[in-house]
């Protein structure tokens, strides 16, 4: 495969929340790259830091949170060095986001057309009438039946599927280089969710954007993503291309997680359980954060955080079991 250019490089990103209860170490040196034109999946369970990664990239980490260290390079430019004003020109224009819940992310007081047209007015300074016309056009592209009429509807008049389509239309208005999709199909029914998956894939091919796809659903990863990072308690524990992940998962957490999915096992079998529960990120476990739940725990696991090892080309695992097998980074 030819070497492709990276659009986004996230390098040792560390984000923490300074709460009254203590410091929540939400992201602990998260690193990954997204190539131009690919869909990169970030998968993990609640509280593992998927969404914090997204808000960190957008510069929208809510107080009392703060990005402590690391770099986020979009086409070589470090987003963490930009001020608020400069970030406003990035958000919605070069990086756009689709949220999980379109009901709470659309403004109930404005008509759909006007909301979708807003980026055209703000970022591209198009005249309002033109922007509304263009909004209708992009709504049609995202599969709105009779967009002219629907553009005059308020969000509550639309179904969940159509609202999510409107969100997607809005995110695509300025032809972003990077689209961040945070669980966009989680609240939708199976058949509607599938329509949205197909839509995003078609549009991504057409616009050539890169996508950061955040989800907890391994099946969605299998069907959508090119590369995948598996997150656990604020770190990426395994990262590789999607086929390798499902064929040859190596990190003990990934292995277990894949066997906990009901469709992955024969229906009569017991599902795999992961002993214990996800740790709190105030005073998280030392060393490897998975070690208290791991089957293969060794003495070193509780004291040293494992570095990412490349165990086969393009397959990175952060686990001491594979230390020495590859070049440490």
């Amino acid at each position, binding site marked *: 495969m030819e070497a492709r250019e990276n659009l986004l490089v996230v390098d040792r990103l560390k984000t923490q929340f300074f709460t009254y209860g203590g410091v929540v170490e939400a992201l602990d040196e998260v690193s990954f790259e997204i190539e131009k034109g690919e869909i990169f999946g970030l998968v993990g*369970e*609640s509280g593992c830091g998927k969404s914090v990664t997204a808000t960190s990239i957008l510069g929208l980490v809510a107080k009392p949170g703060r990005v402590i260290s690391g770099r986020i390079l979009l086409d070589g430019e470090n987003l963490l060095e930009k001020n608020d004003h400069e970030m406003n020109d990035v958000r919605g224009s070069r990086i756009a986001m689709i949220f999980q819940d379109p009901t709470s992310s659309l403004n109930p007081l404005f008509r759909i057309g006007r909301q979708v047209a807003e980026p055209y007015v703000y970022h591209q300074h198009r005249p309002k009438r033109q922007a509304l016309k263009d909004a209708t056009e992009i709504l049609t592209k995202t599969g709105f039946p009779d967009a002219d009429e629907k553009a005059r509807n308020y969000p509550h008049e639309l*179904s969940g*599927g*159509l609202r999510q389509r409107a969100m997607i239309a809005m995110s695509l208005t300025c032809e972003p280089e990077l689209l961040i999709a945070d669980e966009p199909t989680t609240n939708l*029914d*199976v*058949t*509607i*969710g*599938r*329509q949205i*998956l197909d839509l995003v894939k078609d549009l991504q091919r057409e616009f050539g954007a890169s996508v950061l796809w955040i989800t*907890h*659903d*391994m*099946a*969605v990863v*299998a*069907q*959508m993503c090119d590369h995948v990072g598996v997150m656990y308690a604020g770190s990426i524990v395994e990262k590789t291309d*999607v*086929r390798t992940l*499902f064929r040859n998962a190596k990190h003990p957490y990934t292995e*277990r*997680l*894949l066997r*906990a*999915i*009901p*469709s*992955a*096992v024969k*229906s009569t079998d*017991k*599902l*795999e*359980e*992961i002993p214990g*529960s*996800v740790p709190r990120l105030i005073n998280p476990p030392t060393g490897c954060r998975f070690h208290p739940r791991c089957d293969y725990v060794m003495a070193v696991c509780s004291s040293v955080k494992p570095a990412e090892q490349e165990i086969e080309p393009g397959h990175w695992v952060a686990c001491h079991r594979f230390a020495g097998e590859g070049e440490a980074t």
Partner: protein
Amino acid sequence: MTTALFECRNLTKFFPIKNLFRETGRVHAVEDVNLTIPEGGTVGLVGESGCGKTTLARTLLLLIEPTSGQVIFRGEDMVSRSKRQLRQFRRETAIVFQDPYSSLDPRMLIADVVGEPLVIHKVAFGEDRDNVVLSLLKRVGLDADHMYRYPHEFSGGQRQRLAIARALAADPKFILLDEATSALDVSVQAKILNMLSQLKADLRLTYMFISHDLSVVRHLSDHIGVMYLGRMVEYGTREQVFDTPTHPYTRGLLAAAPSLDPNDRDRPREVVLQGEVPSAVEPPSGCRFHPRCPDRKPGCDNVRPELVDIGDGHLVACIPG
């Protein structure tokens, strides 16, 4: 043959839509559903939001009064009974809801939350009650020191365990699990599903399991009903429904669920469902699925298909063509 624990015949529930003066329409939530739940079995109900799964299940438990039809529990019709006469029925049936954050009273101690059915059904009081609660907590994998805490001190998975403990309190024979694992993470869900299987075997329970997650329903159920806009469109054993789905809607639903195999992504899907579920206020005529059906035939918009046995109890409501 096992005996039927639950049966419903021509069960129908319409919700009236009223303005200030009169009824202006009806939501056709459940229409003419026949269902048998064998003792010791698990019947799964699948379908998309608004298809009537929850209404059907709650009507079955008489939490909602049916518009017409019969609910037969252990051979006796329950619909005509008074509240007092239903008390034994209430004791033998229980329900676990989807959202453990809103189904546990935040101001009650766990001992009271789990022990409430015992008091209501006059099974145990005071110290006896506490002893029963203790054994229930142990059964669902919680500790004795959890008894005098409040619901907010527990994680989502633990709360669902508490909800299950409460459901088990009055020693029921039947438990309705309404999206009981949908709000949980995969690894937590795995634990709860394993526990439910274990409890069923230990206590000889009968389950009805409702979920929009096909893989979970497949894992737990031995019979599965597929609903669409208030009607049962297909019913059969797990193998019949999942291995040889016959109704076009079932086929579309199964094809729409993302598979865990990345190689499936390039494979063309057999059936792709377009559009959305129509309104249940003015449902389509004839077969309710006909506006979205890929195999639509001329008669589908005026003839209502009945459930027909296509072999070994595999029921499908579709006009064969």
